């Protein structure tokens, strides 16, 4: 027993010995730290960049903007998939006090930022793909995802009523999502419904929730059961799990609509439509504004199709090749009508 | 020039600052049988562990064949041709004899795979070279203690050792097995091997050894030619003075029946042969019933059943007239059962916990104060036992740091502290030195005098003959003799034990005829 205790103490001593040694090494480093550029930006990725297009776009846009300025620099920080750790990591990032601006993207982040700002009110934040008002150091930009979803919905309506090979007589369209969150329930789902209802108001929606962003197997099971019930086209908003929907559709000869990114090449002929966001462009512009001191913190902005940040990927060769001309024409019309605000789709209170 | 010389060996166990060996000089001539004797805790095992590379001495040197030897571990020792059979066997029970023997230097097939066939052949060959007949395919659990010992010896011979160390090889053996072992040793000597043997039985020293080294409290007292000393002198050298315990038995009238075993039968699931076959006997107050038998004939099973660790297939066990058949140890202990098991290391004690903790199990409730141990009380109790039984070792030290004999004393002390009217002793003096054995005998007789009942299971016939009032002999799970202990010769009991005589044969035939 005694010996064991001593061992514990010894263990503690080892720790204590390492620490001061390293701290002394730290002193020498201080000089290097001082020469940093005047506008440092941190990109906080709530997840990992690889494989998630919106985050990739955010990172690239930021990098491009930074390249234009001598005095700017960027650091990308990936927080990993465990949501429980995001707040701590964001706080730590703010606590470094090294960055003029922290950029992030995800509708969940404003709430975390609000918590962080309590301790670090001076830290500036830019949050893309989110809507939050009333935090003086935060600027948010929200996409009009009603419009984005409307494109997908309209396309779904056109396909299910068409005589394309995979389409059937049932007036049913599908939607598979990873989880429910306000942007989804208040913008995307209603936009989608409005879209296909505009084609034919008898079309019904088969809507399923996976419960996470990675379970492709479950997603594929859900897709199959929807096809069994007569669905012929599915909009997937499920991150990595979306691959399961694509696989199932390919096997069954059905169709998939994709969100946020242009991914026709993943399954030409199966993916028949992509409602995209131009996050790279947005990021680049916003960062430039920030560096030049023109970003209005404390405000929330909404950007839409007309401004050029929401769009329908209608000129991709794989789209042109696989979608009948008649349908493509109708889609082009709709995009025009939305752009010109002939069809008005307002973003609701989130 | 001596074959082996250990010079000025000092070994201090740092944990408790125990000086186990102090400036010990020890030498062995080529091709002799050299005995080491000494009280429990004298440092015999330690000295041999140093020689075998299991412990590093704090001081001193070892010379082998005149050259200085660095023995850092048993592998080094094996390389020099030194082998050791431990006080407590180190065999893997689930493995076969061959697998145990070749363990560590297995013959390989294709450079990689264990070659089972070849190891069997090789082991058999080695064994037969030395005149042993064993089936290398048998598993260790199927063997008697004597056979296990043989396996340990074969294991060393397989490693081509020239110097064989045996630490208390005889304490677990029956008379016949001891004779056999000695024949083996003499044979090995003839073949040119050198043997060091540790024992507590002075008659064995006389019988087998050429020279004897006497140790006391970590030091060597003397080295003698065996032919020049007698047992009395040896025991005086060991202890430092003449010790004489009076354990002569007085005549006592038997009292009431305390334990009654009625037609107890035990059958192992799926096996034909009964492990206990219709066993019946009674133990009265003021009576010591001795149970003799060769290992494997039901003694162990009888111990298990009475200790509450195994359920009987049939029959009844009564304690003071109350049925206690198939009560488990928990309930028997509540009734005050005290029991010294033959297997002291696995059943009788917990090597990794302290001496104190070993001393209080089964009556630890007495030391509680609202669920919390009263450390003072425990300490006082443990100190008391330590003094009374002259246990050599700190009460808070882990039990494994005690010498073999002292571990046994801890177990005995604990069980003897119980107030029960019935106690089972199984092989109570295995590994004890002469003085301690006699002290224990005295204790057992004291218990008898107090009117309690004792069941003494032992393979040591001297022990049974000098203590028991009634002797029961078991053979193949049956009782073959029930004799009052009056003018019985060892030879007679031996005949019963080997199944050459059976007093109840006719009864049994008659019964099965009915």
């Amino acid at each position: 027993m005694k010996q064991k205790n001593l061992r514990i103490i010894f263990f503690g001593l080892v720790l204590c010995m390492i620490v001061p040694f390293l701290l002394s090494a730290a002193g020498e480093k201080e000089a290097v730290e001082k020469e940093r550029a005047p506008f440092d930006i941190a990109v906080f990725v709530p997840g990992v960049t690889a494989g998630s297009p919106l985050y990739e776009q955010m990172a690239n846009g930021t990098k491009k903007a930074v390249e234009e300025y001598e005095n700017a620099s960027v650091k990308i920080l990936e927080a990993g998939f465990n949501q429980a750790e995001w707040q701590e990591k964001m706080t730590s990032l703010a606590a470094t006090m090294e960055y003029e601006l922290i950029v992030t993207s995800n509708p969940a982040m404003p709430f975390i930022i609000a918590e962080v700002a309590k301790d670090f009110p001076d830290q500036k934040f830019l949050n893309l793909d989110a809507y939050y008002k009333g935090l003086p150091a935060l600027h948010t930009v929200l996409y009009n995802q009603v419009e984005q979803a409307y494109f997908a919905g309209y396309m779904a309506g056109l396909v299910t009523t068409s005589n394309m090979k995979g389409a059937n007589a049932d007036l049913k369209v599908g939607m598979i999502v990873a989880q429910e969150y306000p942007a989804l329930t208040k913008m995307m789902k209603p936009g989608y419904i409005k879209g296909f209802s505009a084609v034919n108001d008898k079309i019904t929606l088969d809507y399923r929730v996976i419960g996470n962003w990675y379970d492709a197997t479950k997603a594929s099971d859900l897709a199959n059961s929807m096809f069994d019930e007569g669905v012929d086209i599915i909009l997937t908003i499920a991150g990595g799990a979306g691959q399961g929907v694509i696989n199932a559709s390919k096997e069954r000869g059905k169709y998939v609509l994709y969100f946020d990114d242009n991914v026709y090449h993943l399954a030409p002929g199966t993916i028949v439509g992509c409602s995209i966001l131009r996050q790279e462009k947005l990021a680049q512009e916003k960062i430039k504004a920030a560096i030049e001191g023109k970003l209005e913190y404390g405000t929330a902005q909404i950007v839409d199709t007309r401004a050029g940040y929401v769009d329908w990927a209608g000129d991709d060769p794989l789209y042109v090749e696989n979608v009948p001309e008649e349908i493509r024409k109708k889609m082009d019309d709709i995009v025009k009508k939305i752009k010109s605000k002939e069809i008005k789709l307002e973003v609701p209170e989130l | 020039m001596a074959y082996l010389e250990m010079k000025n060996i000092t070994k201090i166990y740092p944990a408790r600052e125990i000086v186990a060996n102090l400036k010990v000089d020890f030498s062995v001539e080529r091709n002799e049988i050299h005995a080491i004797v000494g009280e429990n805790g004298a440092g015999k095992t330690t000295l041999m562990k140093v020689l075998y590379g299991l412990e590093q001495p704090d001081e001193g040197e070892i010379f082998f064949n005149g050259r200085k030897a660095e023995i850092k571990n048993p592998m080094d020792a094996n390389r020099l041709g030194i082998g050791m059979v431990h006080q407590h066997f180190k065999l893997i029970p689930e493995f076969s004899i061959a697998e145990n023997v070749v363990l560590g230097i297995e013959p390989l097939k294709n450079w990689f795979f264990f070659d089972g066939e070849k190891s069997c052949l090789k082991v058999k060959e080695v064994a037969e070279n030395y005149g042993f007949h064993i089936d290398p395919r048998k598993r260790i659990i199927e063997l008697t203690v004597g056979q296990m010992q043989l396996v340990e010896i074969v294991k060393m011979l397989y490693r081509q050792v020239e110097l064989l160390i045996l630490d208390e090889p005889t304490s677990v053996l029956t008379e016949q097995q001891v004779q056999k072992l000695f024949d083996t040793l003499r044979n090995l000597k003839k073949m040119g091997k050198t043997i060091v043997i540790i024992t507590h039985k002075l008659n064995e020293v006389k019988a087998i050894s050429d020279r004897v080294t006497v140790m006391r409290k970590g030091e060597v007292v003397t080295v003698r030619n065996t032919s020049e000393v007698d047992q009395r002198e040896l025991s005086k050298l060991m202890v430092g003075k003449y010790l004489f315990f009076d354990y002569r038995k007085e005549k006592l009238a038997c009292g009431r029946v305390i334990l009654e075993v009625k037609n107890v039968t035990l059958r192992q699931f799926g096996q034909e042969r009964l492990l206990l076959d219709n066993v019946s006997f009674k133990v009265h107050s003021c009576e010591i019933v001795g149970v003799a038998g060769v290992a494997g004939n039901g003694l162990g099973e009888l111990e298990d059943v009475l200790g509450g660790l195994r359920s009987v297939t049939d029959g009844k066990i009564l304690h003071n007239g109350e049925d206690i058949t198939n009560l488990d140890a928990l309930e028997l202990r509540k009734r005050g059962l005290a029991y010294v098991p033959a297997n002291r290391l696995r059943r009788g004690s917990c090597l990794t916990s302290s001496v104190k903790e070993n001393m209080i199990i089964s009556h630890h409730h007495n030391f509680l104060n609202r669920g919390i141990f009263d450390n003072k009380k425990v300490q006082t109790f443990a100190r008391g036992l330590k003094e009374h039984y002259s246990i050599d070792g700190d009460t808070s030290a882990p039990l494994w740091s005690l010498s073999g004999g002292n571990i046994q004393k801890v177990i005995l002390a604990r069980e003897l502290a119980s107030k029960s009217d019935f106690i089972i002793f199984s092989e109570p003096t295995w590994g004890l030195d002469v003085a301690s054995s006699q002290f224990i005998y005295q204790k057992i007789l004291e218990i008898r005098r107090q009117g309690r009942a004792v069941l003494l299971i032992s393979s040591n016939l001297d022990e049974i003959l000098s203590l028991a009032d009634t002797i029961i002999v078991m053979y193949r799970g049956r009782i073959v003799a029930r004799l009052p202990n009056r003018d019985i010769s060892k030879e007679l009991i031996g005949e019963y034990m080997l199944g050459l005589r059976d007093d109840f044969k006719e009864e049994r035939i008659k019964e099965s005829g009915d």
Partner: protein
Amino acid sequence: MIRLKKTSEIIINSAGLIITLTVAFLIVVILILLLSSEPVKSIYYFFAGPFINKYYFGNMLNVSIPLIFTGLGIAVAFTSANFNLGGEGQTYAGALITTVVCLWLPQANGYVGGILAIIAAIIGGAFLAGLSGYFKMKWGTSELISSFLISSAVIFIVNYFITGPLDDPSNNLLTTYAISDQYFLMKIFPPSRLDISIVLAVITAILMVFFLFRTHWGYEMRMCGLNREFSRYGGLNVSAYMIFPMLLSGALHGLAGGISILGTYYMCLKDVTAGMGWNGIAVALIAKNNPLAVIPAAVFFAYIDAGAKAAMLHSDVTFEIAAIVQSVIFYLITAQALYTFLKYRKRTA
């Protein structure tokens, strides 16, 4: 001279661990030299990061809190030769149960409700682990396997509740509703997340020592763990000690989960307790099952974690590199601890 020997003995005993630590740290340095373009900075933050400000330091201690509880949970089971591999599920269940109780009593007094919620988590964890003990006693199924299987199933069930019935649709994270703020544990080291429960963790460790070495049950439990046959022979209720240690172990895991919610997260996020169970095993191994040693061992784990986080923040170490470096250290140290543990087992067997 004898004194001297003692110290050297201790050094030898800890030598294995120190060597492993040195090797692990060397590997870390080499990895960073290879993978980072500003290695000096990365290494500095990796090792000294957790100490450069109050915030990191407090967070490090905060991470160690649940690890102390789970480490203790594993250690108590180990001392009685029971293996609880279900820590992940028990902790996660504890977190969910605490959240549910707090949500169910939104208006209750913070102390009363909080204590109720924690007790419920303890009971939940104990029940899950106790099941394995019960199965072992009843049918001799290995608690090692059953606890792992039960835990895996429980994780699914908890996930179902978090993403299904209890999901907060107004929150963009996969999480339940947040508990109300009268339940929040007091922060004791602002601006860090360190809360008052660290005191509870230390007290629990001390209580465990007291329990194991001074009480009747602790004694019986240890004896059953060290030598089952001896305990049976000595009249201990051996089968009870297949269940009881598991109950205790599960209770400590449930407690770890509950405390994480009240002290740090305030809502049951998906995977909120992920890793606490497994790391608890490693912590217990390093601590050689000594309840007091669990505290430094848990802090050490938290230190590695905090170091990786600091390096990610302040240098070009990416999430992947940090993960690799962290696992190198964890595996080496766990392997070393496991090795000594098994060696010890072998000797005592």
